């Protein structure tokens, strides 16, 4: 199956990239752009076929590698 993971900065943590993108959009003439936050997005192909076990394993991957839990949150979706 396939897992999709979104890794984002915890709220309150400075996001220099998002800040710069917001600024650049403004400079390009896009009005009404408020906060911009940038995160990572991962698609992982898994041999596992059981959704629960897949989620558990990806949860573990996030904690150990994919997200830096000191400053980042993550959300996992398991797709068929």
């Amino acid at each position, binding site marked *: 199956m396939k897992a999709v993971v979104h890794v984002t900065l915890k709220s309150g943590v400075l996001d*220099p*990239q998002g800040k*710069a*993108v917001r600024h*650049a959009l403004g*400079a*390009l003439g896009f009005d009404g752009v408020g906060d911009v936050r*940038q995160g990572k997005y991962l698609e992982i192909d898994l041999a596992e076929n059981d959704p629960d076990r897949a989620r558990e394993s990806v949860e573990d991957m996030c904690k150990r590698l994919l997200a830096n839990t000191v400053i980042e949150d993550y959300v996992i979706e398991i797709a068929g």
Partner: protein
Amino acid sequence: MRAAVIVFPGSNCDRDIQVALRRAAGAPPVMVWHKETSLPAVDLIVLPGGFSYGDYLRCGAMAAHSPVVAEVAARARKGVPVLGICNGFQVLTETGLLPGVLMRNAQLRFVCRTQHLSVETTQSLFTGLYRPGEVIAMPIAHMDGSYFADDDTLRSLRDEDRIAFRYCDARGEGGADANPNGSRDRIAGILNGRRNVLGLMPHPERHADALLGGVDGAALFEGLVRALAA
């Protein structure tokens, strides 16, 4: 030779290129802030290295939209020589003045070292003082220097003799250690079709003074001065 150096927020090799150009041309270049909408009459425009806009989002992406870059592009299309070094190369690909894109280094780490290069063409304003096939050395210092273009683009770069420099080892050969960032075809620098725009990842301005360990970069600037005087 009258040159202009474009300064973006986050450029950090602007002073270095200023020094190298002054040394080669005998006169200092004009430094142009990215917000300018016009450029003075110049013989050469340089986009320097650095981290314009922090290299956030994608290297060179935000700088490519600076007001002055539209004018740089217009001049380039009129045939004014444009040199993009490192971040400047990234800006040139983002604007479409040069094909392809510079991606994250294959090893995912910043790399700074003195790198051997082979001069792949001497048929340009920029490389006329080198010998064909000459092996030279220049510092590299980048996180996103892995040149990528699709097969068709690569083929036309080769067929049109538009690859200016390739990474190589001390003997001028390829091989595992010769490619510091995973660039396709070991490409370190390319020309546009009209041959008046050069983008390269290595830093010739940092090897233009014997005290700093080499002068192979100086030949690029001296070559430009001569070609533009002719």
